[in-house]
């Protein structure tokens, strides 16, 4: 019954996630989709490029999914991140959870994305017209 999906993919299909989290014991499904925003501090972003240390990233994502299942009563959990070049509006990360009642999946969903951003070895490069910047690399 208890299920985890942890993946790194080239392209995210956001239409899958409802079916993947759907569960007879769940009365709520909460999903967060991270996407490519066109402007960063008034500068126009052409695209984002994501790179992962795949083996370790999957391990860390699995830990986050397991921790979430320990903290909240969840039926299904998903963490899926994309790598490669992504254009404006493209989905780059999907996290979500299903639970009997909505509080658990809302809280878990925020935990999943916030922790992913802190610990998972994935790097994002912003490609502007005239330069590229590794996000968060410098203070």
């Amino acid at each position, binding site marked *: 019954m208890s299920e985890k999906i942890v993946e790194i993919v080239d392209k995210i299909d956001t239409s899958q996630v409802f079916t993947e989290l759907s569960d007879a014991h769940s009365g709520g499904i909460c999903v967060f989709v991270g996407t490519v925003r066109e402007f960063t501090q008034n500068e126009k972003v052409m695209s984002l490029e994501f790179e992962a240390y795949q083996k370790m990233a999957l391990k860390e994502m699995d830990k986050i999914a397991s921790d979430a299942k320990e903290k909240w009563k969840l039926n299904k959990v998903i963490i899926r991140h994309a790598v490669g070049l992504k254009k404006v509006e493209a989905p780059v990360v999907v996290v979500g959870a299903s639970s009997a009642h909505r509080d658990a999946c809302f809280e878990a969903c925020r935990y999943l994305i916030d922790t992913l951003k802190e*610990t998972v070895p994935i790097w994002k490069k912003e490609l502007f017209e005239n330069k590229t910047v590794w996000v968060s690399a410098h203070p």
Partner: protein
Amino acid sequence: MEVLLFGIAKDIVGESLIQFSESEKVPTSVSELKQMISETYPEFGKLSSLAVAVNSEYARDDVPLDRNDEIAIIPPVSGG
């Protein structure tokens, strides 16, 4: 000994891995590795943080390094 590089670390070094041959000084701990690469490539000192993974787990400074370990430099992560 090989050290994997990702993100900005790859750009700083200009390669996707650093190789320490048996004939040269090889780092014996995480802290020694950090010190050695920061001396060779001062740009590492300008990053917001610098972590090392040993066998795909975050490793503290006192963790010893073996030449058969899978070692990676983890610059500030920015997924999501």
